[in-house]
């Protein structure tokens, strides 16, 4: 069932994982993994709890140090200045400042990424995510869903070539979910590569490529329908 893309095919990849491995003591969270993601490609990561999805995304984001292997983003090593400029990571658990409002968050992080801060485009993004009324509130006082939307706004407001998202739909209401799917589609259409880890089979059909992990190993890599994914993870 395993089908991997061969190296050297197509345009210069936005993400290259070469022999990537992560172990915590005796536990191997991710087996040696070779993977490439092309620019503008939409990839979904599926697998059971503990299959290695989050570990992989964190390794790519530079939040974890690989035990072995290398990662390159836009040709630069993961964690380098260029790689950090190219990859936007949205964790499964929102991590936000207690004393900054939504607007201040976007303004601050936007400036760190070289944008003009909170402008019209950011206001529109916030509006679409249903946060317009709360833009001057502190996320520290938000519900889980609103914090998730704030986190999504932060990840989407900055420029990127590769978007890494871990369980984006957890905690979102229906309107938030629709808005997010639409926003992801737009970013993809604009040329960004997406790497989305999710347990949601319905999202899989929107992606061009599905990578299934089991116990840290890739067990499937290719186009997949929702039914195939259910078979892979059940």
């Amino acid at each position, binding site marked *: 069932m395993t089908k991997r893309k061969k190296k050297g095919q197509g345009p210069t990849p936005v993400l290259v994982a070469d022999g990537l491995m992560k172990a*915590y*003591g*005796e*536990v191997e969270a991710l087996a040696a993994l070779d993977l490439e993601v092309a620019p503008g490609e939409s990839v979904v990561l599926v697998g059971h709890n503990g299959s290695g999805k989050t570990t992989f995304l964190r390794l790519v*984001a*530079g*939040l*974890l*140090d690989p035990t072995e292997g290398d990662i390159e983003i*836009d040709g630069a090593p993961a*964690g380098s*200045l*260029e790689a*950090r*400029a*190219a990859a936007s*990571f949205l*964790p499964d658990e929102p*991590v*936000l*400042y207690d*004393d*900054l409002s939504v607007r201040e968050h976007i303004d*601050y*992080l936007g*400036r*760190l*990424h*070289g944008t003009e801060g909170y402008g019209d485009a950011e206001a529109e993004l916030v509006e679409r995510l249903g946060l317009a009324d709360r833009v001057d509130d502190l996320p520290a006082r938000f519900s889980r869903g609103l914090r998730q939307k704030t986190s999504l706004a*932060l990840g989407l407001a900055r*420029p*990127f*070539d590769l978007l890494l998202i871990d369980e984006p739909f957890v905690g979102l209401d229906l309107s938030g979910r629709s808005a997010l799917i639409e926003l992801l589609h737009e970013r993809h259409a604009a040329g960004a590569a997406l790497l989305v880890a999710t347990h949601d089979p319905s999202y899989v059909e929107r992606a061009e490529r599905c990578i299934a992990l089991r116990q840290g190993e890739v067990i499937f890599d290719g186009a997949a329908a929702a039914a195939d994914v259910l078979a892979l993870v059940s």
Partner: protein
Amino acid sequence: MTVAPADSIAALGNLRAARRKRRVAKIHWVDALYQVYLAAIFGGGAVLFLSGITSGPRLDQAGIDQVLAEGPALLGVVVAAAVALGLRSGARGGPIALEAPDVRHVLLAPVPRAAALRGPAVRQLRFMMFLAVVVGAIVGQLAVRRLGGSPVAWIACGALFAVATVALGLGCAFLASGRRLPHWVATAIGGALLAWAATDVFELVPASPTAYLGELAFWPIDFDPAAIAPLVIAVVVLVLGLASIGGVSLEAADRRTQLVGQLKFAATLQDLRTVIVLRRQLAMELPRLKPWVRERHHGRFPIWHRGVRGILRWPAARVARVVIVSAIAGLALRGVWEGTTALVVVAGLAMFIAGLDAIEPLAQETDHPGRRDALPLSTGHVMVRHLPVAAVVMVGVGLVAGATAVLMDPSVAGVKLAAICLLPLAWAGGAGAVISVLMGAPSPSDNWQLLPPEVQGSRTAFRTVWPPLIATLGAVPVALARIALENDGNPYDIALASGVVVLVIVGLVAAWVHQRELIKEWWRSVQGMQGMSTAATSGTSAADADRGSPPANRSAAAGRPAGKKPAPRKVKTRLERS
């Protein structure tokens, strides 16, 4: 993607300044004054205490010569400890503890990490330097009274030594962090340096490098230019460390960020157990997947077997730590036997620390009271059955301590004394640890919280000191045996007699573990009755008073006299009864 680091750094600086300004603006002047008041009380108390224990007549030339001969090596141990702590902290992503969002957003943004981390590093350095100057100057001022010389020179040299020590410790931490030094390398280097400095005190090895920095503190009475070299090295290490902070591992920084805040909070609450658990997480000290030895369970004594299985999964780091701590206890006991009575405290503390690991299965029951209370067994019944495993482990700890003490100067008399003192030493250490873990952190709903901070402080000090004190009692028989020998008495008799007293105390602690819940309930019922009588005299209804202290009246509701409960027994299920 285009990267404009200069703009990003400016944005980072501006926002941090704005946030700091906002935080400062939120501090109420009354709170600030109260902090100053508390700092003055505790700081003043500490200075008075130090002044009291260092007071005395000015030393004669022979005394000064002895201080000059031994002082630098002793201060070298302090410097080595600072370096070892710095290396270990740096290898775990320290010494800076950033905010979680800073790791996730700032360090993942295209901002040079060195620039992003320099501000927090310099702030930490500034604070530590300020503390060092204050402490060093105070110690220098205290030294002048016994050693003579210019007060200004003593204060300046004391402050300079403390600043150099902090610079070296923090510099090593920054270097270890920036260069991503593996844990084991950091521990090995720090441990070797500390061992060298410690053995230098006993003049068993050539002078340790850290002892040269110790010379600096004694410049007012003996100027030794050799101390300039370590001073320069400290500055160089600090500069190199600050230059390399950008290389920090985000994985370590992220883990540290999540744990250090909780660790500090737990330490503030004197919640030792939480501190231990969080420290293990910070060090990634995980139980082994495969136990050292596979243990067979035949169905009987489930609590014993659960404890044994937990112990058999100890990671190598924990085993090594317990062995090292046991050896330290043995060395301290040897020192007690040689004449330094104060080392009973070191031996007791070492056994207490080993005890905190030995009682891990029991401690885990206290970590999850909901799970424990779901058992059809009384709490005392469960807890007391965790003690045998801890007792066996502590016997092993005592054996290592005893062997270390004897091997320093092997003799039949030493073996005999070690055999007599083994059980009291080992079990008192475990008893202290059990008390500490079961007492836990002070409850925020405690009536004591209504009392002034000075009274609360005394109580807190008592709660903190009590468990190590019990552990220290275990080392007292050795000191008494030495005193008996000095007075032509029989050291074995006095060690045996005092050892029996210690064992009786240990037995009382075990009884307390078994009856603790009943004692607490009795105490609550006494408080409840007092509350009711107060309510009655103040015209409040008994029902209102009852609502204020619900657990106290369970006995009355059950038709029992207050403070009495039926004997704990296993409750059988319907299936078991049939």
